[in-house]
């Protein structure tokens, strides 16, 4: 978990604007601000803009998300900032993800009127993935989650790959950027937009990558080994970001 948060934090450069949810994304943004990105602006979809987080919020709308913030506003305004192209990154999860980064958080089953399992739905996920420049996904990796076909495309990745995302009318140059799992870090092929390995976590194998995805993940020759969290990152994470271990405590 500490590794995943550190990787996520490293991907947020200084001067960027990011919309985060609770948990790992929030921890990653806080860590980034304490390390390489003091000018990282953090937004919460419910209306909180650039708070000085006194503690981990439990809801993306709770009072901590506006504590000493630069602005407290509406959900519409946050989504409009994304729509206007102001927001560089968003963090998402989901019950299922396919090789093009499409996410399902709506239903399991093939009958929308009577689903096997009902999940919350899009929430702000579809908005953020449609409008922000780069979508980051943080998720545990296994065959169920990494599905050949998601039961429901709640949130757009590269849809059917290639240019299908822009052809659907979604803003140009947007889309899935990284998938960070407990096994490795993945990106997407320049043209086919299929998921491909960027770096393998220490101690993990290519077999782990393959065994934990229903679809085939592209394995380039030049993949890297993920850098372990630095002691600076670990100290910030354990002492400042999440001293009560609410998040880093999780498996």
């Amino acid at each position, binding site marked *: 978990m500490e590794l995943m948060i550190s990787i996520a934090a490293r991907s947020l450069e200084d001067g960027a604007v990011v919309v985060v949810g609770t948990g790992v994304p929030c921890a990653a943004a806080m860590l980034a601000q304490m390390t390489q990105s003091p000018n990282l602006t953090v937004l919460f979809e419910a209306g909180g803009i650039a708070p000085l987080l006194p503690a981990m919020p439990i809801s993306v709308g709770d009072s901590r998300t506006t504590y000493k913030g630069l602005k407290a506003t509406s959900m519409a305004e946050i989504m409009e900032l994304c729509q206007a192209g102001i927001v560089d990154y968003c963090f998402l999860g989901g019950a299922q993800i396919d090789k093009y980064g499409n996410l399902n958080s709506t239903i399991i089953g093939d009958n929308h009127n009577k689903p096997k399992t*009902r999940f919350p739905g899009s929430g702000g996920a579809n908005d953020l993935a449609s409008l922000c420049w780069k979508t980051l996904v943080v998720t545990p990796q296994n065959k169920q989650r990494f599905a050949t076909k998601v039961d429901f495309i709640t949130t757009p990745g590269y*849809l059917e790959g290639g240019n299908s995302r822009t052809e*659907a009318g979604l803003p140009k140059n947007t889309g899935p950027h990284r998938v960070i799992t407990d096994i490795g870090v993945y990106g997407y092929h320049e043209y086919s937009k299929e998921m491909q390995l960027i770096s393998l976590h220490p101690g993990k194998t290519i077999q782990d990558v393959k065994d934990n995805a229903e679809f085939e993940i592209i394995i380039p020759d030049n993949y890297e080994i993920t850098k372990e969290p630095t002691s600076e990152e670990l100290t910030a994470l354990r002492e400042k970001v999440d001293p009560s271990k609410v998040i880093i405590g999780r498996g």
Partner: protein
Amino acid sequence: MDTANLKQGIGEIFASPNSDEMRDFFRKKKKLIEDKRTTVKDAVQKYVHNGDYLAIGGFGGVRIPTALVHEVVRQKKKDLGFSGHVSTHDCQILSAGNCFNRCDAAYIVGLEARGLSKNARRVFESGNIKVTEWTNGALSWRFKAAAMGLPYLPSRVMLGTDTFKYSGAKEGLCPFTGQKLALLPALYPDVAFIHVHRADIYGNCQIEGILVADDDIAKASKRVIVTTEKIISNEEIRREPHKTVIPYWCVDAVIEIPYGSYPGNMPGEYYSDEEHLMEWLKTEKDPEAFKAFIDKNIYNTKSFYEYLELNGGMKKILKLKQIEHLF
């Protein structure tokens, strides 16, 4: 422009987006500046009818009108439509009462990081609820379209997904640039519940922290019931005009309910009662136990304060105030 291949969602639109119908309603609605104080019981009896489309302000577990939602269950309102616009604990309460038969879903059945509501899932997996899919942004903009007196607003979300397919949106092309857009029908609820920090007796309201969509919901809805932490004088409202989020003419009823967002968070006042919310989630796993839990907390309580007493009363509130302020 090639409008040939434009798609449209198959989801049902539950309320008419026609802005002229709403104009006619407002034309006839008197905008008298009068004392609108009443009780939760009377307000729900008078302004909520079976079959109505309901919008609930706040953010699921933040600044929620708990007393009104409980009263809807207590009065056994049926066949409501409602907008699941980050509907977490409120969706959980309405599900416990089986009060609705249709829902515009952006975020439902979950309590964010806390987990999923087993009972709300049971309701939505029963096949008895008509669900049209949307996103948080889309529902926010549907309320905004209504607040602006428009029948629709364009947006750039949902395109290319199943969320669009099961929504009531339509694709359209910008007449100036040819850009493909998702057009969203305005959403005019029959009635809305909103909890605020301060209101005067006429219904002028102030809110601290995030607005979520409550400014637009208040303008978009035919009837609005406001619960408030505190009633303040009209002079106090007029001291800081820039703080007025909801003007009096939007509001039909005002009820003063200190701690009214419990068990939700009230920004600057008290934090959410995580223990009690976890108790909801835990109890829902056993239908029998959950029935008893709802009887105890809602059906057999006469008021919000009986409910609050059952769960720790002012002792609990003081603890939640400390969490809010000391973190």
